[in-house]
């Protein structure tokens, strides 16, 4: 048992290591941004939150607070973008969900839009790392059990199926984790961050605009041509909008 504990503990350290080694300056910058927000200096807060992002660090809390600052500045599109980014990191957080609903309701935006379909919709919110970790733990436990198992004479009749089940479940979970990671990476969504973006039938300013997209609407980006991106809304309506009017989630 001591061996098992040592192996599992070591694996846990490997998995958790990336989350531990954060420079303290990031937390300090985040605190400073929060302080600016509390004092009502929302522009300064946005700049400070953005600086943390530009430094290569992100967290659900950062996106949540950045979204709040955008809400105070009445910038619906960037606020929706920030909350959606936060939800990718922490899918079940009620505060992110609440704020997103609030912004959408205030801006009279559709409740859904640009949402993933098919199998991708099935794995939205799943954590590949968690699934992978659990799967690896199950495989290690099953393998260790098989190695140290004393055979049917010394153990109970349950040990064989238990070991096989653990290894099988572990393999399955690891496969699901890798597949989920792949499918989530293939899913592309974006938010309209400009106040209004005409959806044109061709990537040119002179093409007819059939629909005007409002700030905060979710779209599915596709091909890009120069400074234009082809987007689809709910998999139906399609057109081109300037790439600068979009922020990918």
């Amino acid at each position: 048992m001591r061996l098992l504990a040592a192996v599992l503990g070591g694996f846990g350290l490997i998995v958790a290591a990336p989350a531990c080694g954060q420079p303290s300056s990031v937390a300090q910058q985040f605190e400073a941004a929060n302080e600016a927000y509390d004092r009502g200096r929302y522009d300064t807060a946005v700049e400070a939150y953005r600086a943390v992002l530009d430094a290569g660090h992100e967290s659900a809390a950062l996106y949540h607070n950045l979204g709040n600052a955008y809400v105070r500045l009445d910038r619906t599109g960037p606020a929706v973008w920030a909350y959606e980014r936060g939800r990718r990191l922490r899918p079940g957080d009620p505060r992110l969900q609440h704020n997103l609903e609030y912004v959408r309701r205030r801006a009279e935006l559709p409740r859904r839009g640009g949402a993933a379909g098919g199998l991708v919709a099935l794995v939205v919110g799943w954590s590949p790392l968690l699934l992978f970790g659990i799967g690896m733990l199950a495989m290690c436990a099953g393998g260790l059990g098989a190695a140290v198992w004393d055979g049917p004479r010394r153990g109970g009749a349950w040990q064989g199926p238990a070991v096989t089940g653990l290894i099988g479940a572990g393999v399955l979970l690891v496969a699901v984790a890798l597949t989920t990671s792949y499918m989530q990476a293939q899913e592309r969504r974006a938010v309209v961050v400009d106040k209004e973006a005409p959806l044109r039938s061709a990537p040119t300013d002179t093409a007819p605009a059939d629909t005007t997209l409002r700030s905060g609407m979710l779209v599915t980006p596709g091909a890009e041509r120069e400074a234009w991106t082809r987007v689809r809304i709910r998999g139906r309506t399609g057109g081109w909008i300037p790439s600068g009017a979009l922020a990918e989630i």
Partner: protein
Amino acid sequence: MATRAGTVFFISGTPPMWPAQSMLVRLAVFVVVLGGVCVGMSRAQSSGPVRVTAEATPTDVRVGETVQLTVRVEGAPATVVQTPDPPSTTNLEPQQRTPRMKQIRASRGGRLRQRVVFSWRLRPRQQGAARIRPLTVVVQGETYSTDPIRVRVSPRTGKPDAPTLTRPDGASRDKSLNARDLFIRARATDGQVYQNEQVIVEYSLFYRPGIRLRHSRLAGSWDAPGFWREELNVAARPTPQRRRAHGRAYETVVLKRAALFPTRPGTLQVDPLRIETEAQGTMRLRDRGPSLRGRFEPVQLASEGLSLEARALPSGAPPAFNGAVGRFSMTAGTDTDSTSVGEPVTLTVEVDGTGNLATLAPPSVGAPADMEVYDPTVETNIERNASRIHGTKTFTYTLVPQSGGRYDLPAVTFSYFDPDAGRYRTRRAQPPTLRVTGEAAPRAVGRTGNGLPVGDVAAPMAATEAQWARTDRRPLYRNPWAYLALLAPALVVAAGVAYRRWRSGGAPSPDETAAVEKTPAPNEETNRLQAARRHLGAGDDAAFYNAVARALRAFLAERLGRDGPNDVPRTVLDRDLPRHDVPPDLQGALYDVLDRCDEAQYAPRAGSSAPEDVLANAHAVLRRLDTALPRSAPTPPRP
């Protein structure tokens, strides 16, 4: 006068002049005269006031005709007159960017008169008043303005005008091209339509085979006042089609196709389409003579204008009618049929069909009193590649129930006028019944059940809640560490096996030998003991023990180079096994198994060990012997 060499004599009292002095005098006189001429000319040029006038002809024009605007600058040469900008106009459209310029010099009464004339061609846009604002001309740094000019634009004559081919001013008159060789034809699908009914106008370029065109582009703007218009796609690089017109064969390409929707009843005019191009025609000097190719010459082509009659819609429109004309279908549905109080529900109404989708108003959605309905978001998806405008317009409403219960949402109604049938039609779509759980939303409560504020965003999160991650991290499936981590279970198993060996001191423990039966054995062992296993399964103990003994002896005979299983008596084993460095404990284990088999063949149930144990021990012994007695290149026995 008489002269002598080297001496000059004067006939009169004039002093004598040397040749050089004479040349200087002549030069001075010439300079004085030339200066006088130049000053005189300059005075003649600048003499008299500069006068700038503007004139438009005619000032009473019909739609489709042109107005000539002429600006005259008198009393100044062209070298001191700046070319004026195009005139600023109302209801008139200049047909050229730069004016045509002409310089006139005339001598009258001994005085040189100069005049510079600029002219533009203007085309009225629509019936009514038109105006040319004062035009500014700069002459020698001084600014002169013309008077404004008013032009009256009358409606187009009843008969359609014809396509035209014109050449820009100054272009040669090449006889190889005329308006019957090269023209733009405008056609409308219908000359009489209902208000807001779709009519397609198409402009096609007709040119005789053999005519070459280059540098073609649209000239000026095209408009259809009184119409809502939607462009239809035409091929960017069209393939010419062969068609006949006026009894002659032509190559044709479609230049433009547009869907027009009259916004008001009455007679509405559609502008001609104009293009500028360079055309090269062919001509024959005599009948049946060789055809000669002319030069590329710039030409301007204009189609005939179109006049369409828009009829008012008939009376008796249903209450849900909001101006839609065409043919439409409608569907309505919600994203869910059950929700809870305060949770928004999306109602999607989709109108699909042929008509003016851009101006289609949202269908009215009635809702129960205790349900909030927000204005819809609208998406329009228009298909422009077909022969007519059709597509889908989606209205997405957000409904928020304020109390629990069962909601039978009223049918969504949409009416339109069908121009083919000549009557109004109404479409109805029934949304599903909505079941709402929960109680009425509390009013004026500051917090939700989760402690989140009502009508505001949640407070910022503290730094302690932040779990930081790198923004540039790869997805799991692209992370090589994930695949390296897959080796961890194998390492764990190896560590477990090593631990077991370490605990048993390197020798196969009874537990290990017992485990061998369940542990997958090497193929050779499994094969050798397969017969024994079969006999054990059949319950034939005597045959089992015999098979185990034979398997062991056959293995030993093979590895020790003996003739067969019967050729490895105990004496041979006592002699050869130590020579192959077989450990004594393994030798003892081997003898133990063989002894048990010998005993059990005669008294199967007399032994103390179960057959399964004997089989497991035989497995273990075979496995160790396989290592101690290699198959190939057996170690020669020590002498």
